[in-house]
């Protein structure tokens, strides 16, 4: 499968898994799907038959709430049966909402933001000390970069020349209640990473050609690399894009699910099969008048402090 095909499958599984389980964070799964597709199709040297191989590349999804994306990527890569994805969130499942290391192929359980980069840094540091040539990849959220622990590890990784470490920030512009710029502004994000001593590549993170360029880009120094992947939260399903509601809401039976599936079918690359609804949904439920669609659900829409005046 190509990265683009795998990314589409991740999106389709993400819709199905949250639909079945009532799970959250679909918009976060959609924005990161291309990054995950690229990683598992082309970048990571991992082997489903030997998931604990000591020379494997390490991968951490630090924004662990997008767990469905890593589960889907692992299942599609042969680490466990695709059928099992349907158990996401269910009683007695292995697939907890946030990433669990009890699932084959997962190196670290996550869910509390700000933990992934320090642990990835430790794996990269030990790799160099042990003269291993594995690489370590970690995906962070942009809101997650509010956490001080991210920057503490960033400083350490640059100081110790961890050239085997790549961080990818899913810069989907939003966090939990609003746009990042309206929550705690990230400021000049590229310059911040540069100032912390990292090699920075800034790309469109929903574009596979740009992802390819970014992962392959070499720098002639020993510093770690960060890919600022500019994405859209909710990418691929227009009515979810940049609508913070879809950080929480799952596609309910009826128009929400039908429209989500059919929007994905509009962007389905050649050569991928939809395992759930092969031809999309034939008679989709119409969006009823008054439906909560294309509304602004951010905090700043109705929060108007004036204490500065």
């Amino acid at each position, binding site marked *: 499968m190509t990265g683009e095909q795998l990314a589409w499958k991740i999106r389709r599984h993400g819709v199905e898994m949250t639909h079945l389980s009532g799970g959250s964070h679909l918009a976060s799964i959609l924005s990161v799907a291309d990054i995950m597709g690229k990683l598992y199709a082309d970048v990571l040297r991992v082997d489903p038959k030997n998931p604990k191989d000591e020379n494997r590349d390490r991968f951490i999804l630090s924004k662990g709430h997008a767990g469905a994306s890593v589960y889907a990527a692992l299942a599609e890569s042969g680490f466990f049966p695709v059928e099992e994805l349907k158990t996401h969130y269910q*009683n*007695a499942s292995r697939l907890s909402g946030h990433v669990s290391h009890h699932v084959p192929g997962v190196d670290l*359980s996550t869910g509390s933001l700000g933990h992934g980069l320090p642990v990835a840094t430790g794996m990269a540091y030990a790799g160099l000390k042990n003269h291993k040539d594995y690489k370590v990849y970690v995906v962070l959220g942009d809101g997650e970069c509010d956490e*001080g622990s991210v920057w503490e590890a960033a400083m350490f990784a640059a100081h110790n020349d961890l050239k085997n470490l790549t961080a990818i920030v899913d810069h989907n512009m939003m966090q939990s209640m609003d746009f990042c710029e309206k*929550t705690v502004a990230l400021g000049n994000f590229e310059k911040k990473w540069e100032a912390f001593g990292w090699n920075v590549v800034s790309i469109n993170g929903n574009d596979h050609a740009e992802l390819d360029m970014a992962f392959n880009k070499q720098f002639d120094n020993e510093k770690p690399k960060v890919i600022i992947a500019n994405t859209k939260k909710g990418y691929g399903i227009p009515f979810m894009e940049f609508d913070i509601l879809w950080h929480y809401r799952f596609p309910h039976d009826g128009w929400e699910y039908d429209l989500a599936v059919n929007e994905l079918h509009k962007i389905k690359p050649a050569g991928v099969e939809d395992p759930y609804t092969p031809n999309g949904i034939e008679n989709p439920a119409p969006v009823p008048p008054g439906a909560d669609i294309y509304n602004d659900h951010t*905090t700043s829409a109705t*929060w108007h*402090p004036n204490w500065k005046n």
Partner: protein
Amino acid sequence: MRDTVIKTLIEEAKANKDIELITGDLGFGVLKPFYEQLPNQFTNAGIAEQSMTGIAAGMALSGKTVFTYSIGNFPTLRCVEQIRNDCAYMKANVKIICVGGGFVYGSLGMSHQATDDIAIIRALPGVTVVCPGDPTEAAEAVTGIINTPGTVYLRLGRGGEKKIHEKIENFQIGKALKIREPKAEAGKKVAIFSTGAILEEATTAAQMLEEAGIGVEQYSFHTVKPIDRDVIAACAAKYDYIVTVEEHNILGGFASAVSEVITDLGEKVKLIKIGIPDEYCTAVGNQNYLRGLYGMQAAQIAARVKEEVK
């Protein structure tokens, strides 16, 4: 419970402009009525709990009463040293609200299970620990903790808990609430104490035991610290068995707090500790499912007590 707390907090904050609410980027929908009605008393600190708690301490040391808000372990374990050094030691008026104590977010995974928080926060000198059992207790607790000087931890369930009390006369932080008296004619009698939203299971279990002829004196300990020594002392003197029920590690939390008092008193009473054994829960499932795995559902609690006292 969550919505009742915010509703009460809005009333209190309208009457006192020095009350502030600061969130660690959580509370979508839930905090909306607060920030719409009291825009100048609301802040989002971003996903940065250490900073949020330090900022709360700084504001509190400058005249405010500051509520921090987050879920699971984020407002507590993630920033425990800020709570210890900057809040508790400084006697800062910081009131920490956690939504999702216990297995509320069970299916989300281990990161979201707040099952050691009572033990850890209880170990900090000067921090009051409040875990209301139902929405009525939760509403009373908000007013109660505003009037409690210093740092307070308020551990909530989620939304939709059943009301156990219609109303409460004379709610006091540190004083357990009696839910039932044993029937005089009952053969065997026990005391059941619970803390937090597991009150609903404990109450149903007590009813089941009563139907089976075992008398129960039941209390809701909405405050774990300071613990109500008087109620423990009275029950330890009267009964052979005290049952503690908590959605938390049985090590270090409510059961430990009760047993500390019992050993101080030198009473001979057997403590039956219902809660999570000292391990990380690796199972995935909803709150009710995970309670079931650890024998914390009402019927399981009743069966365990019957077995012990027979």
